[in-house]
């Protein structure tokens, strides 16, 4: 039975080979290396033409809009050369370090991940099309060339995209650390009056740290009134709002009143829409108003003295 099958499949293979004399996967006479060499020679020969086409396609697809046409062409040239070199040598270290270097340069300019993946895929497409054009009349050869080209091209696309994403993640990690290090200062502006300016994103870890620092500050400075300024907080969700409510409650347990200032219109709208109850919290429009209100509560009277009279 098994033997029967075997003979049958062999026969089928024969038949297939007759239909497609050079079936992909098993190059009869040329090794992958030879094909790649041929491929690289072709790409070298058509270098300027393909490079230009690639740059044009990038612009057409509206990728890399943050860069000028000249910059795109310059980068395209070096990416192209690195690409061909990686195809030729089969080693990706040079390309990898180039990709990292490129990412380092373009990430600050706001280039997105989809753009980088997009341009690499475009280059792959442009090159594949040129191969189609070249081997149009020799289908079996085209097949073999593509067999050699595809895995290498995929690997290159992979290397570049991963390099970019890794670089991006590294930048994000660094920034996160920088933000965490920017501890929230608790400042005393008058006897018994503290200011807590909050800037940036509040996650639960930061909120906890913030509350602890505020409570310690209240004890240390014997504060009676605290002004929490959230002008620098871009967005607020239910969680963040609840953190602030908790902070206010905790401060109250230590005997300090809290005034929240600097709620933007967007935040005010969000809070009302999601139904967070801030009615128990005193809110004042801006920091100045908050400090004035706090001074009133503490019995301060600020008076402007005419400098000409003194």
């Amino acid at each position, binding site marked *: 039975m098994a033997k029967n099958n075997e003979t049958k499949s062999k026969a089928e293979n024969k038949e297939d080979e007759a239909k497609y004399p050079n079936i992909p996967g098993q190059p009869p006479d040329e090794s992958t290396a030879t094909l790649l060499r041929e491929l690289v020679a072709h790409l070298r020969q058509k270098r300027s033409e393909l490079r230009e086409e690639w740059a044009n396609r990038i612009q057409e697809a509206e990728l890399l809009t943050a860069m000028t046409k000249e910059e795109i062409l310059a980068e395209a040239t070096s990416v192209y050369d690195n690409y061909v070199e990686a195809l030729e040598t089969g080693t990706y270290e040079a390309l990898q370090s180039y990709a990292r270097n490129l990412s380092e340069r373009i990430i600050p300019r706001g280039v997105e991940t989809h753009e980088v993946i997009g341009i690499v895929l475009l280059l792959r497409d442009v090159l594949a099309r040129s191969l189609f054009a070249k081997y149009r009349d020799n289908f079996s050869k085209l097949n073999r060339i593509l067999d050699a080209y595809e895995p290498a091209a995929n690997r290159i696309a992979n290397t570049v995209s991963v390099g970019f994403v890794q670089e991006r993640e590294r930048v994000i990690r660094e920034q996160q650390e920088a933000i965490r290090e920017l501890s929230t200062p608790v400042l005393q502006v008058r006897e018994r009056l503290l200011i807590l300016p909050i800037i940036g994103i509040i996650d639960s870890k930061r909120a906890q740290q913030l509350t602890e620092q505020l409570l310690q500050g209240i*004890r240390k400075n014997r504060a009676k009134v605290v002004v929490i300024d959230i002008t620098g907080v871009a967005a607020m969700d239910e969680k963040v709002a609840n953190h602030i409510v908790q*902070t206010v*409650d905790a*401060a109250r347990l*230590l*005997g300090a009143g809290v005034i929240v200032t600097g709620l933007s219109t967007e935040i005010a709208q969000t809070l009302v829409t999601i139904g967070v109850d801030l009615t128990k919290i005193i809110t004042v429009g801006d920091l100045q108003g908050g400090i004035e209100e706090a001074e009133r509560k503490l019995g301060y009277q600020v008076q402007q003295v005419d400098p000409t009279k003194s």
Partner: protein
Amino acid sequence: MRVPILQQGGYLIASVQSSLSDEELLQLRDDLVARVSTVRARGVVIDVTVLDVMDSFATRILRDIAQMIKLRGAPTVVVGIQPEVALAMVQLGLSLGNLETALDLEEGLTLLGEHTKAD
């Protein structure tokens, strides 16, 4: 251990000396409410500086004490809640309601002074 209740210038000061069991808390409540009327106190300060835990029962009893003393005509201030205790309380959702709080005994007395002056 019974919580000592001191009298100072028309104010009663209950100074908690160690962590309290539920019975001791109830005892404190009864003692304070009784003392307020006998000495005609103008205000009560409960000092909880030494407490490093405040559970829901303690919170409720403190609220009750304040309410009862108010019915007998005097304000109550809880003083000396530790920052960690305050944080834990808000995270557990424990609230002292309208009960007034102050940083320490001195602040509490000042606060009571302002209240009785306003009356």
